[in-house]
């Protein structure tokens, strides 16, 4: 019990999509954090960050979920999350949501100040410069909108990807263009969303990369879904899977499991 207190206590916010669709990303995050010297906990009181309600007019449910999240992560040194979008929700939007609330306002702000997207946390807080992983392939990277514009994630993933053995990184033209996912947008306006993801899919295929990475599962499901429908063989993965060296544990997104 003597050396334990020096390890930062990190609460992992798994996000509902990763919890349900891609648990391996959660374990990749755990591995990266533990390798970097953190003690990782997964508060059981977490579910969804509340972004669907917040972005679709349901303020009451969004606030209830925000309060639930704030409570679940109090007492931990950090909240780390493998998603720029849900991360932006907690870091940028929770404080706005409770701006005028004397009780929840300060609690939201306190959590926001301790909230980090996974890769930024590794690079900017823990000073990680390289990971001990190998991936033989040419990968390209899409900058998900909220991660880029709300959380300022741009160089971090590229820095760590360059340290992966066997990996060559090729830039995606229009990497900062939205893929057309947009949460409920993709089902509210499916035709517009399809046009946007088709542009994205064409750009990905155009790079000649065999693997497509990003840091947000919503965008990844959207891009993988379109690439697969088009018959493309490009493999799609969350960036954490590659950085943690866990690509052997699960097939790429949208590919058959249990080969």
């Amino acid at each position: 019990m003597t050396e334990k207190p020096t390890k930062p206590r990190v609460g992992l916010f798994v996000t509902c999509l990763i919890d349900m669709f891609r648990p391996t990303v959660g374990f990749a995050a755990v591995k990266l954090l533990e390798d970097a010297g953190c003690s990782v906990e997964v508060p059981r009181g977490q579910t969804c960050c509340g972004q669907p309600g917040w972005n679709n007019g349901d303020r009451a449910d969004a606030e209830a979920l925000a309060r639930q999240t704030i409570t679940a992560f109090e007492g931990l040194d950090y909240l780390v999350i493998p998603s720029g979008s849900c991360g932006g929700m907690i870091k940028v939007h929770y404080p706005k949501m409770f701006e005028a609330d004397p009780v929840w306002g300060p609690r939201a702000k306190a959590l926001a100040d301790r909230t980090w997207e996974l890769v930024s946390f590794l690079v900017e807080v823990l000073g990680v410069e390289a990971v001990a992983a190998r991936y033989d392939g040419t990968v390209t990277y899409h900058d998900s909108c909220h991660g880029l514009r709300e959380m300022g994630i741009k160089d971090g993933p590229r820095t760590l990807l360059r340290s992966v053995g066997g990996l060559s990184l090729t830039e995606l033209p229009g990497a900062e263009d939205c893929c057309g996912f947009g949460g409920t947008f993709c089902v509210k306006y499916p035709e517009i969303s399809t046009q946007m993801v088709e542009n994205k899919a064409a750009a990905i295929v155009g790079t000649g990369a065999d693997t497509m990475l990003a840091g947000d599962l919503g965008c990844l499901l959207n891009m993988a879904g379109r690439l697969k429908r088009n018959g493309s063989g490009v493999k799609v993965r969350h960036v954490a899977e590659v950085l943690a060296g866990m690509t052997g544990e699960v097939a790429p997104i949208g590919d058959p499991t249990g080969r």
Partner: protein
Amino acid sequence: MHPTSHDFKDNARRALDDVHLQTVMGVFRGGFVDKRKRAMERLPEFDQLRDQARDLKNHILENLDHYLERFEAKVVENGGQVHWCRTPAEARETVLELCRAADAKTVSKGKSMVAEEIGLNDYLEEHGVVPIETDLGEYIIQLRREPPSHIIVPAIHLTKGDVADTFREHHTDLKPDRNLGEARDLVNEARAVLRQKFIAADVGITGANFLIAETGSTVIVTNEGNGDLTQCLPRVHIVVTGLEKVVPTLEDASTLIRLLARSATGQEMSCYTTFSTGPRRAGDLDGPEQFHVVLVDNGRTSLLGTEFHEVLRCIRCGACMNHCPVYNAIGGHAYGWVYPGPIGSVLDPALIGLAEAHHLPNASTFCGRCEAVCPVHIPLPNMMRQWRFRESEQKLSPPALRYGLGFWGFFATKPALYHFGTGIAMTVLGLLGRAKGRFRSLPGAKGWTDTRDMPAPEGGTFQQRWAQRQRKAG
């Protein structure tokens, strides 16, 4: 213009199926984005200027009454007149009366989005005054009887070929076999036709990019010089503009001018920046005999102090739509009213009602690019979000969405139930999707699976597997 924003979904679908429009938008995409980027790189203090402009606009909105009254006093001092109009109808009538008092048959017009907003052209025509648009893009769409599809490039949805066809159809006194193959031919023809109209016009109507309180001047920026002819040649100059355009000083106008063209087209300045200060004075060589400013409110002041207050900072550069992936996919007409793109998605519900325009603030992925490029830092996505709150309160959003969100809220605020339920659901879905790794169709997810596969979940949730790991670790 009769709004069709309530048909946004159908409008968008038609736009996406329109091969011609898609070709044109394909050419447009990215052009202004690159030009703005280069202009920004050439001006190291660009971002500082944006902050300055935001603060300036905030100050003006806090003191709008003061600056507008100063502006009016100066206009009157210079021999002009200001007409305060609460509604589009008041503004149209005011302009018509001024035209009638001048015994006007034809009116030359510089580009003005506020004139579009109040439906000025149709109204003048119905009452026997012929308005002639003199901005090339506006002239083309006026001939075609179309609304603008972009606030600074109104005919962006057309090709050179379309314009040539339009000119052949309307300029019937010219030789039918003349060459209209190049942009230069089209410009020369428009110039020749319009020159006669400029000379014949009794009244010139322009918009204004800025109104300057300390001098009583109105400012327009153009690239064609048509605005100068419109306001100098006729006997009467009428400026039709929104009252949020006022700025305190010449220096302030220059701050905003430095941002405007760079944000819009990537130019350092537009070709012409024209200041109009009152009618012709004794000894002036030219200029109008009368100078009128029609200040249109049309709901603007009712936004002051609301969650939409900051939208009044807008200087109408169009950068938000140039950078918007939704605008770039469907073009401007699909939005169904005068202002398209992100600024329209915030402004239109305020101007034509949320019931009519409720789709527009929903037609965004919240990618945030509009806010990132806005020269006056308008938080456009957050304002669209505020409209969505109102839409939901007024039960204008689809019932299925509201029930779905209600269910999600109920379920997700009960972590134990949630972890149990998602555990079962993902185990089942994981097994069903295991062989192919994805679904080609899923009940209730047609919008997604019509055009893309739905990747299958791994099977079981992270929370289930984490709990197992914790048990093993003991």
